[in-house]
């Protein structure tokens, strides 16, 4: 399902704190014992899954931090075939597969293996 997402307010986090984490799902920690339903196969949903997994922050005021909005923008500008592949890869991954160095606060987009498939 494709949702028309409107971010109405984007600066409610505390002053001086550049990152809003977003709430984590049960599967964010603890290995395979803690399961989550697979996300829908669209850009918004798989990026939500990355927030749920504590792989990326929900939002960041710092330019260059790969947050939810950056994730959606990145996937949607890909060609259809790469978009499909990236979405399928994220949706099939466990949370620990999605985490990289400095997750969830300041991850580097280039470290995500699923995103590397779309990197051309």
């Amino acid at each position: 399902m494709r949702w028309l997402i409107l971010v109405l307010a984007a600066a409610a986090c505390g002053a001086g704190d550049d990152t809003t984490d977003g709430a984590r799902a049960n599967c964010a920690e603890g290995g395979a014992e803690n399961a989550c339903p697979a996300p829908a196969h669209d850009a918004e949903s798989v990026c939500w899954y990355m927030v749920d997994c504590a792989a990326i922050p929900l939002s960041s005021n710092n330019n260059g931090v790969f947050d939810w909005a950056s994730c959606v923008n990145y996937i949607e500008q890909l060609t259809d075939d790469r978009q499909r592949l990236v979405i399928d890869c994220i949706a099939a991954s466990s949370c620990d597969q999605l985490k990289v160095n400095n997750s969830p606060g300041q991850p580097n987009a280039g470290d995500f293996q699923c995103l590397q498939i779309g990197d051309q």
Partner: protein
Amino acid sequence: MRALVVIALVAAAAGTAHAQPAGDVPALIKLIENQPSDMDRSTWKDKRRDAAKKLGQSKDKRAVPALEKLATDETFDIIGEIAIEGLGQLGDPGAIPTLQAIAADPSRDKSQRELARKAIAKLGGSAEAPHPEAGAGSGSAALGTGDLGSGSAGSGSAEAAGSGSATPPSGGVTGGLLGGGSAASELPALPEMSDDTLAAYDRVTFAGGTANFGYDTLTKRMDFDADVAGSYAHRVEREKLAYGYDADAHVVTGWINPSGRADTRGAEVDADGDGEARIYRGQVYGVGKVTGAMQFNYTADIGANPGNDIKNTTLAADLELALGGGYGRVLDVGAQIRVHRLSRTLDAARALGRPIDAATAKKLELTWWALRGERTTYRALVATVAILREAGILLGEPDAGLTYEILNVLRDTQLYVRPSGFDAQLTFSEGYLDRPPAPDAAYENGRIEQLLALVGYGLQLDDDKLELSGTGYARYRLFAPNGAPSPYAAGANLTMQRFTYGEHGDPLGAIDVTGTVEFSSDDLMGSDKSLYVGGSIGFTYWINQASGLRLAGQIAEDGGELFLGAQLTATYGLLDGTFAR
């Protein structure tokens, strides 16, 4: 003396009760034949049965043709059986041919035929009356007309053969609309299920997902991707023991090869399995769970220019064990609801001879289980009708309308995974996670201990058309090494679903409302505790076979951010009207 007086009074009272005024008979016949305009169908159905009973007790021979018609035609309703009994009570030997025809008709229900034989005996019918059991000792032909339905009325008299035309022989049960009789002997082998089994399921899913391949000579670009998944789950809930296990495998792979040096290849393989066993004492249980998982990733991203190539391979594995206790259980009662709907469908069509008992319900559910691999619903339909008729629940062969409604019940996809009950458990988990070493990795690695809580809830209401269900979870990492975080999270969601059906059992759509709340902490430096509160509502409605409407809305607040979403999808049209000569 006192006893004699009592007997006399009782006899007088009985005589009064049986001797209905003669003038009532035409009124009773009229009530049976025509539904009064000021009476709804359900009330009329009951009044009709009462009227048939009264006709049978009336001792008035004017009631005979009306009861004969009911006995002959009303094979779907209990009123047919009332009429057969009534003909015996009325004492008119003129009804014997009709009753003989019913007794000899192999397409009639066994109980109806037995009632007809008893009525014939009351009327002093001939010993040569053509009913199967009577002929069993002296002639094989009559025996053959029994359940096997050779089509003949046996060695019966010309009188019986002649009257047989009133209820045309269907050629035996095998020649019926659905061939239910022969199907009874062709029922599939049913899965073994012990008597103390409360519920069980077995689910096999192979999801091909998507597989795409493309190549064009214009840009000389090739692309391929595939997403394939499969899962298996099995669970048995018994009174004192419950166990279940499941396994999943998922492969995502792709290869994108434009012209030139650039080339991207990737593969991800995930496999996991888990098992759970519970030992119950009343509603309280002890539980043990084990989970294993393996994840493999391969990525090769070859750049257009040398020096930008990336190749990555990672392997991760999990093995975890949890022990604890809990209270209650949540069962999937979808099959049970299907039986309830079947019963209501037969009752509405006046074809329910008696309620579906537990043994028949079990046989139906296991038959559907055994036939779940069939490409069509045909065998399930035939077997269902055969089982219901054999049990004397379905009166006669269903007509086209009732067959359609039974088929709708059997095909109803809204009856899969319908939870019922309450379950709460608390476990301590010990596990070992094998992850690729990385100095600043945010993931847990090595030994991990957790406290886990799970809650489940399900309730089916309003003739099983309204479902309330919910789940809850909480996790907290214990004994984290110095410097490692102890994250925690808790969450719950509640869903209400309203299923709607058309007049003949066609699913018309559903309304679903969901609310979710989650609270978590990563327990990292500079990280906040976060709260998510969200809700969604969806409405799906099928206007006709070519038209539908879907309206959905969502609102969520997460970490101070507000998200709103809405979607409307609507199509309207009619199926093609075509003609060709």
